[in-house]
């Protein structure tokens, strides 16, 4: 770094001594005060100068002793002590002037009432000090198309310890993630302390980080975040379940499984089985139709691809259903359990080498029901525990990871249970509450605990399901909760899409992109890299209404095989190219 901030930065104004005429005829008549020393000093702002000294003489130029001299600061914001000093035998009086934070001229005054020349003014010069802080001034949180230059520069400001802008400080810029290009690797602060650079976004959609740094400077580096946008593309599918409304989906390998909901021209009692290809256009190969159910409310395939589980509600046969996927195109029934009033969702959890289903019973004595799943056991679906949940629109969904279960309990918020993590001694047969958090707006429907590529497990994304009209309108935001302290989770941000509400999520953790089903808003891709706070609306990467306006009401979304699959209640299963 070139340290040029000492030279050439200050326009120095020399005022010298200002001698004011006086016509006073009082006690000090014929007395004269003048500067003895200490005028016209140069020093770093905030520093103490050599003493300011005045000399007081009588009409015969004889030093006067015992004359009071009053000292004051005229400009620059510094301080001077003492406020009054008395001349000595040599007629001299002095004071100590500590410069203020203003770079440039600073003045102090010595006054002797009635004396000729009074007051006298000392003119000093404050010099800029060393850089002490770098702040991010503007240009953060911008978004633009991939490969495009962002409209606004990234700007930092360099200031000294007193907050004064520093010119001539070299700032180094680096693209940390995203592969973009900068207009310059190094820029120098101008007279207002500003250093700026333009960023051309990289070719990949998602988050991009740029740092600005000054060696040795506290607070350095500072990080700028940008979001590179790219569109979704439709690869195939759509308008392929005309007789039913489509509900949830799961994709494993070359097959997708979608549920159905309510009543269209047929009941929501079917699971559709689709064969997938990289080129798109899922092909329907089979259906599982179950009597006595009105909705397949959730569907999931075990991580090893061997088991298919779906929950069902609304009907005398509602409950949990388990199928073998030994032949993924033709699931084979293994077991089912009936649950009065049905199950809203069912999620796999893998704890202690065993496989569990965490099922949300809602409504009617809402509860989390935990089943151990073992297709080879005498009772393949074995209930091991039940956890009551407040009847506050009950329990809607559960996200299980690392032995923690995040219960999405509507206006009761998110309840975090240890079901095998060890943080609170819980297990699947004995869940232990760790903490809870109520997000703004309540109506908590679903969640995803995000594990970033760096191993950070800071954020929990929470879906709010507001009031809406199925097939027409929806409402509800995505809320971001900081769970880095599991005992004290706190909401730190949110995403709002005007005119639509969120439903289920999927997170591409490697690329740090959250895909959200947004009902009539379609599918939304959000950049969730880096630090999240406040509104993340500008982190929107892409949005698509696969069925078009009036034919889009997306229930679920999932990333698999590099593509994004979306289940649309109105227009069926879609295969989308990720941004």
């Amino acid at each position, binding site marked *: 770094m070139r340290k040029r901030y000492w030279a050439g930065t200050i326009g120095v104004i020399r005022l010298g001594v200002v001698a004011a005429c006086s016509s006073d005829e009082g006690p000090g008549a014929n007395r004269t005060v003048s500067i003895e020393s200490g005028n016209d000093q140069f020093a770093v702002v905030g520093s103490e100068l050599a003493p300011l000294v005045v000399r007081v003489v009588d009409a015969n130029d004889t030093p006067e002793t015992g004359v009071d001299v009053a000292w004051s600061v005229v400009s620059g914001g510094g301080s001077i002590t003492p406020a009054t000093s008395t001349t000595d035998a040599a007629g001299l009086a002095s004071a100590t002037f500590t410069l203020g934070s203003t770079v440039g001229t600073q003045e102090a005054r010595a006054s002797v009432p009635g004396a000729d020349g009074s007051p006298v003014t000392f003119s000093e010069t404050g010099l800029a000090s060393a850089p002490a802080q770098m702040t991010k001034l503007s240009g953060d949180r911008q978004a633009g198309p991939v490969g495009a230059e962002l409209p606004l520069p990234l700007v930092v400001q360099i200031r000294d310890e007193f907050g004064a802008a520093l010119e001539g400080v070299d700032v180094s810029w680096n693209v940390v993630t995203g592969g973009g290009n900068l207009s310059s690797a190094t820029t120098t602060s101008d007279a207002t302390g500003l250093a700026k650079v333009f960023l051309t976004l990289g070719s990949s959609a998602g988050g991009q980080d740029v740092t600005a740094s000054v060696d040795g400077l506290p607070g350095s580096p500072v990080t700028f975040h940008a979001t590179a946008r790219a569109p979704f593309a439709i690869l195939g599918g759509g308008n392929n379940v005309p007789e039913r409304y489509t509900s949830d989906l799961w994709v494993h390998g070359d097959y997708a499984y979608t549920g159905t909901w309510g009543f269209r021209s047929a009941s929501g009692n079917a699971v559709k089985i689709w064969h997938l290809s990289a080129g798109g256009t899922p092909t329907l190969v089979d259906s599982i139709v179950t009597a*006595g*159910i009105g909705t397949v409310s959730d569907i999931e395939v075990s991580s090893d691809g061997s088991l298919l589980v779906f929950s069902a509600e609304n009907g005398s046969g509602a409950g949990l259903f388990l199928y073998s996927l030994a032949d993924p195109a033709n699931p084979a029934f293994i077991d089912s359990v009936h649950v009065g009033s049905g199950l809203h969702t069912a999620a796999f959890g893998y704890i202690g080498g065993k496989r569990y289903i965490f099922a949300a019973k809602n409504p009617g004595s809402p509860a989390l029901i935990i089943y151990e799943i073992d297709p080879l056991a005498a009772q393949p679906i074995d209930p091991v525990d039940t956890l009551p949940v407040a*009847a506050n629109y009950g329990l809607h969904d559960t996200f299980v990871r690392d032995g923690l279960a995040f219960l999405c309990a*509507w206006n009761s918020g998110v309840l975090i249970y240890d079901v095998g993590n060890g943080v609170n001694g819980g297990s699947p047969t004995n869940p232990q509450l760790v903490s809870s958090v109520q997000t703004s707006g309540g109506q908590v429907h679903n969640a995803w605990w995000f594990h970033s590529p760096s191993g950070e497990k800071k954020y929990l994304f929470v879906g709010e399901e507001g*009031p809406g*009209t199925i097939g027409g309108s929806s409402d509800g935001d995505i809320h971001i909760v900081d769970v880095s302290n599991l005992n004290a989770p706190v909401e730190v941000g949110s995403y709002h899409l005007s005119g639509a509400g969120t439903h289920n999520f999927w997170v591409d953790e490697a690329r740090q992109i959250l895909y959200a089903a947004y009902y009539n808003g379609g599918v939304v891709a959000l950049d969730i890299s880096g630090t999240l706070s406040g509104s993340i609306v500008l982190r929107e990467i892409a949005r698509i209404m696969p069925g078009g306006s009036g034919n889009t009401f997306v229930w679920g979304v999932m990333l698999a095989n590099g593509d994004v699959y979306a289940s649309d209640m109105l227009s069926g299963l879609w295969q989308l190219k990720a941004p």
Partner: protein
Amino acid sequence: MSGQATVAGTWVSRVPHGGSLAEVRVVRPMLMGRGSLFGGRLRGVATLDGEGWTIPEAELTVGGWGEGFVDRRHPHTYFHELMLAGVERIGGPEGAVQVSLSAGKGFVAFGSDDPMNRVAFRYPVNHHWSQILERAVLIGGIAAGPVMAEGSLFNGDEPEEPGQWPNMERFGDSWAARLTLLPARGLEVAGSYAKVHSPEHRDGAGLDDYKVHAMARWEGMAAGHPLYAMAEWARVEEGDGAFVYHTFLAEGAYELGPTRLYYQFERTERPEEERVLDTKWRTIRPHLDNSTLGTTRWTINTLGAGREVRPRGWPIQARPFLEASYARATKVGDGVFDPEVWYKGTDFWSLSAGVTIAVGRHALDHRMGRYGVAEATDTRQGEHTGEMHE
């Protein structure tokens, strides 16, 4: 004491999934008691309703909905009314200002009279927009000359079954106010406002209703015969504007001796909710969330005739009636619910015939849901209009 019950048969030309349906039911079986002490300063009213036994699966009604039933009118709770009211006239018996405090289970001072004792047999679609019933309620009232004001505190939750009592933990979470003007003999004009917390979710997690209601009612004589007319309008907003419903209803009756002719026009919007798979007549209760399937608007014209019969030597009244309705249902706004698909058509005919048997002087003319000063005002109005139902 009084009592009544109606034996009625109803045929509806179109029901869910198409086809027609006819049913015969005993509806509105009620025992009503009234009493007063201290010169009328303490009054009590009790109405026991046996619909929980006679129509546990509700009553076939075009456009009917509420309390978990749809296309049917729900049974009332066994204790339909159980109210005590203290009434006092400020300034002594000749004082111009009357005040009252009423408490118990019954109607909130909001909207119009309960349809149970109005002119048409068919319950209007707007029952839950224009009345707030079967709540634990505290009503304060004041009447001075032609002006009456009432304020109510109550629990927001609607009953979910005949045997259910109001959720007392929620008492006071909802309120209503009604201002009534009596500008001329027989004429009554009223405006009401209510904020009802989570009526559709008993535990309180549901959406709030903000209800506005206005009505005008007149009873008098026309060409020497009693005439009754009423018109009402209401707007209900749910979920901070997520859902808005309107209703307009006008009805009238003209009595020619013992024969009464009546007509009712109604245009009311109602929510469409996910129905229970196994019945088609029920919606999922409690709700899974705050979404609906859409909104329908029901436009219904109802024409009927009834006749007062007092069997000689019997302490009863009988009112046989015949009533026909024609309705059209249309989809309003977005949503997956399409009446054309659900009912296989959008026009409906409904025919009802039956007889209401009543015992007791006020069994058929009791304006249900009026307590304290409102009851006193009703009495005064009745006196003015010549007791048209007697």
